[in-house]
Every structure is written in structure tokens, then in C-alpha cells.
């Protein structure tokens, strides 16, 4: 098994994504891995502008909460839908993660339905191991 040296975690600002970031950062501290917080910019966010800086700030705050210096956490913004951007994060440069981490439900999904669930789609398409952090499991 390939050692986990770099963890990519999806972040869209939702409570589930925050839980995933906390879990990824906690694991990274335990196994001495790097963390890359990944955000996907879709069509609407590109048009609206301005959301990325707010999310980067929120990710830095989560790092501090987990006892990690924000400067040690990398931040990657990719154009596309969340699933495609995260799949790319696991397939090569610039992120080249060994492990993907996501929350169980993102902003776009409906509880109880598989369609529209990034975590479900990633389970089908990711080429690296995937951790789905259930709701309310932050930092455990």
C-alpha cells in the first residue's frame, strides 16, 4: 500500500465539509502528512466572484482550531464541478493526493438520494482511496 503523504480534502464551506477538513487535519497531524484543501469553482461561483477568499479564510481558521499553522496547509482552487475537481486532485499535478477526504453531503445534494451526492460519485470515480466523513464526526 502506498504511504499517505498528501491528503486532499474537499471544502465548499458547508458544515459537512468543515467536518471533513477537521478530520483530515487531525489525521494529517497523526501521520505527519500534508493537507491540501481543495475548492471547486463552478459556473455560478465564477460569475458571482468573491467567494474563494472567504472560504480560504475559513479553511485557515479550521487549521488553527486543529492546532496546525495555516501556512502549512495548502489551498487549491480548481475550475469545475466538485467531483471532477476532486478526481483530478487524486490523479496528478498539481495536487497529486494519496488520499481524498470529503463530507458525506455537500451543498448540492439532497439527503436520502444518491444523485447529486459528490461523495457517492467520488466513490465511483476516484483513483485513490477515499474517506467519507459522516455528519457530526468532526475531529473524532
Amino acid at each position, binding site marked *: 500500500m502506498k504511504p499517505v503523504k498528501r491528503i486532499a480534502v474537499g471544502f*465548499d464551506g458547508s458544515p459537512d465539509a468543515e467536518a471533513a477538513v477537521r478530520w483530515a487535519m487531525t489525521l494529517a497531524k497523526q501521520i505527519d502528512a500534508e493537507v491540501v484543501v481543495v475548492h*471547486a*469553482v*463552478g*459556473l*455560478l*461561483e*465564477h*460569475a458571482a466572484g468573491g467567494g474563494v477568499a472567504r472560504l480560504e479564510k475559513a479553511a485557515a481558521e479550521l487549521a488553527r482550531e486543529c492546532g496546525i499553522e495555516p501556512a502549512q496547509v495548502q489551498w487549491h482552487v*480548481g*475550475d*469545475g*464541478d*466538485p*467531483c*471532477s*475537481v476532486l478526481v*483530478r486532485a487524486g490523479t496528478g499535478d498539481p495536487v497529486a493526493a494519496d488520499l481524498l477526504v470529503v463530507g458525506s453531503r*455537500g*451543498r*448540492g*445534494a*439532497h439527503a436520502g*438520494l*444518491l*444523485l*447529486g451526492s*459528490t461523495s457517492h*460519485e467520488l466513490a*465511483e470515480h476516484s483513483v485513490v482511496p477515499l474517506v467519507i466523513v459522516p455528519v457530526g464526526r468532526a475531529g473524532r
Partner: protein
Amino acid sequence: MILVVGGPVGQAEHEDEGHPERPERVAAVMAGVDDLHLGTDLHMVAPYEAETAQLTRVHDSGYLEELAAFCQAGGGDLDPDTYAKPDSWTAARRAAGAGLATVDALRRGAGDVALVAVRPPGHHALSDRAMGFCLLNNIAISAAALVADGERVLIVDWDVHHGNGTQAIFWDDPNVLYVSTHQWPLFPGSGAATEIGGPNALGRTVNLPLPAGATGDVVRQAIEEVALPAIDDFDPTWVLVSAGFDAHRADPLAELALSSGDFADLARMVASYAPRTGRLVLFLEGGYDLGALRKSVTTTLGSLLGALYQCEYPTFGGPGTEMVHRARGQRREALHRAWQLTPSERRVR
């Protein structure tokens, strides 16, 4: 010259308040058609709901079942960009069916040029996933029907966004040549010049990424310098166009700098790749500034039909020439590398 219009499809049955992909877009397109005052030279084709067997040529049957169930359950957000409503499943099937009916009408000799005036748009839809405002890949469904009948289909995608869904669906199909001009980097993040097609269809994908601010002359240069050799080799029997008009400089979703006059020039250029009249079909994709959309539809169709129309001047002098040259080099290198591999090695890649 007779214009065939399939649709319109996509009024109130597929609408999410405040979303830019909205019913007024189709109304603007039809107003653009009306501005040509074609009279009896306009032939309308009634859409029908595409059947499952027609959809499964490009879409996974499990995805279709899930999408139908999702809509039936009330719909919602499929991703941060893409929504579905209770009647969206019907609207999407009618949009796909309008494309199929329009192609059939041209085959019967109903006209010289066709427009499929439908929404939701389609070129981002993957075989198993909705995204980028798209539920079903309308142009791919029509192209697959033509391929099933032995045709060679050129798809030119001049929407400002890369048509990742169409590219993926025909990635390894030697009977479809996919050519895309698009702003890059931009959603959906795919569309690099090094993406050239699968092992059975090397060279059948041509990506022409362009920087923000690129003008019409650069888009035409990209097609002529990079795509034209592949188009000549392919010798298409049909030409379908993913006609998004969001590369217009007024569009709020992207930053290319084309005018409606540029679409007129592009349309004439693309029409010259068809083997004869009656083999060119334009499918509406993006375009979110209603005024620009209306003007662009009028000028595009007017130029194809030889009708009278007013348009903005074509644009010149924007950035992107170097990027076109780089794309040509990257494509050549990728093709060279791929052809050096054995057939089994190509499949592994």
C-alpha cells in the same frame, strides 16, 4: 434557403428563480429567429420526448432512472450549478427529442440549415452525471443516432465553456470528430490541447483553449490553423454545432470578447465543412445575456441563410495568438507520443 427550427423547448417546466439558465433564454432565441422575418422560409419541427433507447446510446440507463426518480421526488440541486424540477425530466427528454426530430426533418429535405432551440442545454452532461446546467447531452444524442446510421459527424463546440460531456462520450469513437474553442482556464477545467482522443480515436478530439479577452479573429485562427487539418482528414458527412453564445463580450458568465458579427463569420466557416446544404444543425447551449443572445442568433442564422440582418462588427486584436501556437505544438507532440505506443499501451494510458 429554408431554416428548420426544432422546438422551442424549455419554458416554465424547467426554471429555478434567479438562475441564469432560465426560460427567457429560449424566448430570446425565438425572438432572434423572428427578427429575420423568414415567412414561409421558416419550417418549425415539433419536438417529442426522446425514447429510452435513443438516450441510452450515450447515457447510462441507471443514471436515467435516477434522474427520472429525482425529478419525480420533487427535484432539487444536483450540484452547486445544476438544478432539476419535477417537470425537468420531461423537458430534458423533449429537448433531446427536438434534436432527433430536427435531424430527421433535414434528412427528409425539409430545409437547408437547422437550429435546435431548446433548454436545458446539454454539452456538459456526462453519460452518468448531470453538471454545468445540463441534464441530458442533446447534441451527443443526435450525433449518436447519426453514427448508428453510418454517418461521420463533426461536432464544433463554440460555447465559451469546454463541452466535457460531449468529449467524454465520443472520446474513443472514430466516427465523431469533436472540435472545441473555449476560454481556459475556466469551468469545467477540461479541454487542454493535449486531450486528443482515446486509443481508437486518436486525433478525433481537438481542443483549442483561449485566454480571457480573446477576440473573434483568434477563434477563427485557432480553427483554421489547428483544427482544419483534422476536419479535412475526417471528411464529415454531417456537421453539428454546440452553439453557445456565451463567448459574446456581454455575457456575464465568462470573459471572451466576441461580438455577434463574429458568430456570423464562424457560422459561415463551419458551414463550409458540411458536404452539402441540409447537413448543418446548430444546438443551443449557453448564452446568458438575453440581448446578446438574440442578436447573435439573428446574425448567425442570417449569415447562413443569406438573409438580411444587422450585426456588430467582428472583433480583432485580442490576446491568444501565442496560445493557439502553443496548442498546435502540444497537440502535435501528444499525437506523436501516442502514435509511438503500441495499441495495447495506448489503451493502458
